[in-house]
């Protein structure tokens, strides 16, 4: 099964790289947004030694993972149902798990590349300092949990996407809304009405962005967070809970075909 999963991962990555439009739009878009926001808002922070562009560089990691995980998976599964990929695989001895692991490998590969690109832009263009080893450790589990949550939710949401054509439109609604209310596009998040922060706190993106700010920004920046603290324990708990919710939703909504059952 391992070799089949790896083989699935290989063809998933191969197909993604050969489809230039998706490379440009899903992969380079977060980096373009970072360049844009970072340039427009530049240095407008009071805190010493931190620029707005550095805050964007760290928060934007949450957006990068969300688009690679949630959008790639959600649209990818809808596409696989429509073009016959799933139907073909279901007629072979390939286990469903291997198919899903293949997708996870694709998302993981893209997310690693995406994160590397965003950090590179942050460091090279906006002078974002790289953190020490203990912060990288936090980065590792935060990154892993974020990818899993977004991937699972992507699989789950694909169940309600009827046609691959409409996938982009449907998936981008929650993505864009969550960017605005989760402290990715607008930070300090405390500028938002309290009830909106509460709403954002129910979803994973706010916690992902907060965690990545902990990793890349100086400790003093925690005063701009909603709770005035980094809340690493709570971040782990919320993302862990979303892993479970995502898995349950996946199992409930997964369909092999549009006409299944």
């Amino acid at each position, binding site marked *: 099964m391992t070799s089949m999963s790896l083989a699935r991962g290989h063809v998933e990555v191969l197909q993604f790289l050969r489809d230039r439009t998706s490379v440009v739009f899903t992969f380079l878009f977060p980096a373009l947004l970072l360049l844009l926001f970072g340039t427009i808002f530049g240095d407008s922070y009071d805190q010493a030694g931190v620029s707005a562009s550095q805050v964007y560089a760290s928060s934007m990691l949450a957006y990068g993972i969300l688009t690679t995980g949630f959008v790639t998976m959600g649209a990818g599964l809808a596409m696989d149902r429509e073009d016959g990929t799933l139907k073909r695989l*279901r007629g072979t001895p390939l286990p469903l798990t291997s198919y899903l692991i293949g997708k996870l490998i694709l998302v993981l590969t893209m997310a690693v590349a995406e994160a590397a690109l965003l950090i590179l832009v942050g460091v090279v263009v906006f002078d974002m300092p790289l953190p020490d080893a203990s912060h990288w450790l936090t980065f590792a589990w935060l990154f892993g949990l974020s990818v899993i949550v977004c991937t699972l939710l992507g699989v789950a949401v694909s169940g309600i996407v009827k046609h691959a054509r409409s996938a982009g439109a449907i998936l981008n609604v929650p993505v864009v809304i969550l960017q605005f209310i989760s402290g990715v596009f607008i930070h300090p998040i405390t500028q938002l009405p309290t009830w909106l922060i509460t709403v954002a706190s129910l979803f994973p993106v706010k916690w992902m962005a907060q965690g990545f700010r902990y990793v890349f920004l100086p400790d003093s920046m925690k005063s701009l967070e909603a709770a005035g603290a980094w809340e690493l324990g709570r971040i782990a708990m919320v993302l862990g809970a979303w892993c479970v919710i995502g898995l349950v939703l996946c199992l409930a909504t997964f369909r092999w075909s549009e006409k299944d059952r």
Partner: protein
Amino acid sequence: MEAIEVTGLRKTYQGREAVAGIDLVVARGEIFALLGPNGAGKTTTVEILEGHRRRNGGDVRVLGEDPGTAGRSWRSRIGIVLQDADDAADLTVTEMVRHVAGFYPEPRTADEVIELVGLTAKKTSKIRTLSGGQRRRVDVALGIVGRPELLFLDEPTTGFDPEARRQFWDLIRTLAGDGTTILLTTHYLDEAEALADRLAVLAGGQIVAEGTPATLGGRAAAGAKVSWQEGDRTRTEQLADPTELLRKLVADGADLRTLTVTRPTLEDTYLTLIGARK
């Protein structure tokens, strides 16, 4: 053990019976064709046999197992040629065939299969760049790469040009010659006649006739129509056995330059069968 045994198969969609009690037996090594107009229940039946769809009733055994519950080892013994897949467009023919081969315990090699379906010249081309007929041949390659005991072909030659169809028929005969059981659905009666050992006609979710291409629907007993020229008049006679008449015409020295003896074609029989249903 037969390759396929079906008794009383039923499938309803929102109260409408798409398959209304089908009995079917396909022997090992046989090429069996399922004919019928659009909406007759062909694809539904085949998809139930493939394990792609659930049934509402009846007993189904495919290679000895219930396709509704059969596992991976069963799937490694069947091959499915999809009707309208559009997947893997960015992979090359070899890449995709090799990839799918990796799912099976004892696959054919990619080169062997690509050669069999006549795509050797295109093996490094991306599937996206192939013509419709070539694309379908990739589907066939993927269906047979796992060395299946039973192959499902749902309208496999739709969109083929005549030459490609002939080549495809040869391929199916080769596979059958190696002992592969083949279940085929088709719109083309010449295809059924050329390939099938036995066939069944499906209409309105039921089997209305079953037999060999020569005997289907009483075709063998349907007799013949003899017509010939008598002066400036065309004479036509419909007879159960034309032997006597022909002997007499020869003995009488009749003008036989325009003589025709026609027996009902498979198409005539088929149209009568499905027409009788409507």
